[in-house]
């Protein structure tokens, strides 16, 4: 003001020009500052205008009533301009807040939808609410779960039981001090639970309701996912049952057929002692085979549904190979079994029963799929820190594209599914057994030229372990 007055005096501008200059000044102050500043500016301007430019100059006396009009104009301008600018600023602030809220809700919904699979849903919701609203305390009540989850564990803003009350009533609750807010989680007319927050400043109820809506949708979504996961699991177990039953029916009926045919012949006709002996031998062998089938089936079902429990010890691979071959002896049917086991092979640290079961699956496959009278070769050798056992047959091999699938649980190649009985579990279990012992199952196959499976097992590193059974559980 003083500068304007001084300048005005110095350059001898007339009173009208000075008046306009003051007006511009007031406008400037009003748009930038608060209303009180604008009024102060206008009062100062009136005083300065009066003192320096209105006759009698140098006094605060107003001689001409017209000058009152100037004073009023200054005041009105100040009030109007500052009012207008305040309103515009408020609108800008509101828009900014809304944008921030939208961004928060977007982040919130994104975080909920993408949720970490393994964190409990309630914890995810609480974490997101705390992060998004930057509040101190939050509570989440899921009516189905029945418990109120809070973060931190002890709330100071409101009682956790309020969450239940709000969910039952379906109406929001705000603390008397306005520092806590609990809103119901509603989907349509059903109340799924409630969501509460507490802090010195809390977001609007509208914002909370929007968030509540998102949480309600997320609850529904999680629930639908759980249902579909349960259904998938039950379908899987149905499939397991059906496949196992079908395969068992097949596998058991084969020895049963031999037994039934032998016993009915023994009962029906008078037989020579040698015929009797032959038939009784068959019954005996087939009874052994059924015993193996029973224990294998139990083992397969157990491995298929629970982690493998290993009882490892030091063994030579030669004894395990010989045991597996012996157990399948009656199925060789003229097939040549050549065994090439390096006599200097180091011992392996393995579970004998499980490893034999694994090796037997591969050998049994070779017998099942290769033509009668063909050759099956077993070779055991050392390569670095591993012992390798290879079983090669002259069967049809594995069709291109099937190499990975045949290791999947229950998978059976389409060309053998109807023809050769099997559970589709053998190879998947073989791999599980071998890999849990630090080994690998490798496949080399030439389609129509035979399949060759190799099992690798780490050699026993410390001979001190000898004779000391080690138990470890692997999942």
């Amino acid at each position, binding site marked *: 003001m003083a500068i304007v007055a001084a300048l005005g005096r110095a350059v001898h501008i007339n009173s009208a020009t000075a008046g306009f200059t003051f007006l511009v000044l007031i406008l400037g102050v009003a748009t930038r500052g608060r209303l009180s500043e604008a009024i102060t500016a206008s009062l100062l301007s009136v005083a300065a205008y009066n003192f320096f430019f209105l006759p009698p100059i140098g006094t605060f006396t107003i001689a001409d009533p017209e000058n009152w009009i100037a004073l009023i104009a200054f005041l009105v301008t100040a009030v109007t301009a500052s009012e207008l600018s305040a309103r515009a600023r408020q609108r800008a602030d509101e828009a900014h807040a809304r944008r921030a809220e939208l961004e928060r809700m977007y982040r919130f919904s994104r975080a909920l939808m993408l949720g970490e699979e393994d964190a409990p849903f309630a914890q995810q919701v609480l974490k997101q609410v705390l992060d998004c609203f930057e509040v101190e305390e939050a509570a989440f009540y899921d009516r189905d779960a029945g418990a109120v989850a809070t973060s931190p564990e002890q709330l100071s803003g409101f009682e956790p039981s309020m969450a239940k009350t709000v969910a039952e009533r379906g109406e929001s609750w705000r603390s008397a001090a306005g520092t806590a807010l609990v809103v119901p989680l509603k989907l349509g007319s059903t109340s799924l639970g409630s969501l509460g927050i507490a802090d010195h400043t809390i977001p609007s109820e509208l914002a909370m309701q929007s968030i509540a809506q998102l949480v309600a949708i997320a609850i529904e979504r999680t629930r639908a996912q759980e249902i579909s996961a349960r259904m998938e699991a039950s379908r899987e177990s149905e499939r397991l049952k059906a496949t196992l039953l079908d395969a068992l029916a097949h596998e058991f009926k084969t020895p049963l*057929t031999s037994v039934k045919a032998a016993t009915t012949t023994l009962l029906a006709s008078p037989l020579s002692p040698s015929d009797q002996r032959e038939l009784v031998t068959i019954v005996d062998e087939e009874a052994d085979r059924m015993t193996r089938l029973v224990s294998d089936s139990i083992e397969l079902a157990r491995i298929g549904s629970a982690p493998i429990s290993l009882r490892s010890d030091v063994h030579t691979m030669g004894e395990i190979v010989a045991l597996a071959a012996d157990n399948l002896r*009656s*199925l060789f*049917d*003229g097939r040549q079994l050549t065994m090439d086991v390096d006599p200097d092979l180091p011992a392996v640290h393995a579970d004998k029963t499980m490893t034999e079961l694994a090796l037997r699956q591969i050998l049994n496959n070779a017998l099942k799929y290769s033509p*009668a009278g063909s050759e099956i070769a077993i070779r055991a050798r050392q390569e670095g820190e591993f012992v390798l056992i290879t079983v090669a047959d002259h069967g049809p091999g594995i069709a291109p594209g099937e190499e990975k699938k045949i290791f999947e649980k229950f998978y059976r190649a389409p060309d053998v599914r109807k023809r050769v009985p099997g559970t589709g579990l053998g190879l998947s279990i073989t791999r599980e057994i071998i890999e849990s012992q630090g080994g690998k199952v490798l496949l080399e196959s030439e389609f129509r030229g035979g399949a060759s499976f190799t099992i690798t097992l780490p050699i026993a590193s410390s001979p001190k372990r000898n004779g000391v059974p080690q138990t470890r559980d692997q999942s």
Partner: protein
Amino acid sequence: MTKAKILVVDDEPQIRRVLRTALAVAGFTIAEAQSADQAFDKVREERFDLILLDVNMPGMSGLEACAELRRASEVAIIMLTVRGGETDKVAALDAGADDYITKPFGVPELLARIRASLRRVPYLTTNAPAVIRFGDVEINSDTRHVTVSGKDIRFTPKEFDLLHYLVTHPNVTIPHTKLLQTVWGPDYGNELAYLHVFVNQIRKKIEEDPGNPRYLLTELRVGYRFRLLD
């Protein structure tokens, strides 16, 4: 009576082993094959009266093998399988098998089925002439040959027996049970699927329009009737 020769085709060594003894005791001569391919070789080498054929075999399946054998031979075929469903039975009969037995089976039942399949209907008890003609079809019961429009048509033994019985008992409805017991044997009577399959096969061979037969007519839920108009 010469011993009937049976070929056992099964990939299971123990089943072949037990059948070898059981069938030998029952008075049959036995040969074995481990696969369909081996069976074809054996059939080329010598003549068999009957083949016991396993359905589930690696390589060529029993059903494919049966159809293949049927193309070249009228030998009686009984299929062995672990599945006993109606569709499986029809599939076996469709492939050309004469009969079907579900594992596990008792040997007496197997022997009964083997005898039924080997059995031929005694034609001499009928007073029918040796050669019967209707339309383009000519049936010679002495040579067991059927010609249609002068062309030789291959009939399996059971197909021929069924056709012959129907033709020699024309224009009356013959119940299912009666047909089954006459053609397959006294142990049969409920195997309607057998009849459906065999009647369809015969219609394909002698009828101009098998879907709309002129001669071999179905009497719904009762049996079949062979229409001969003289």
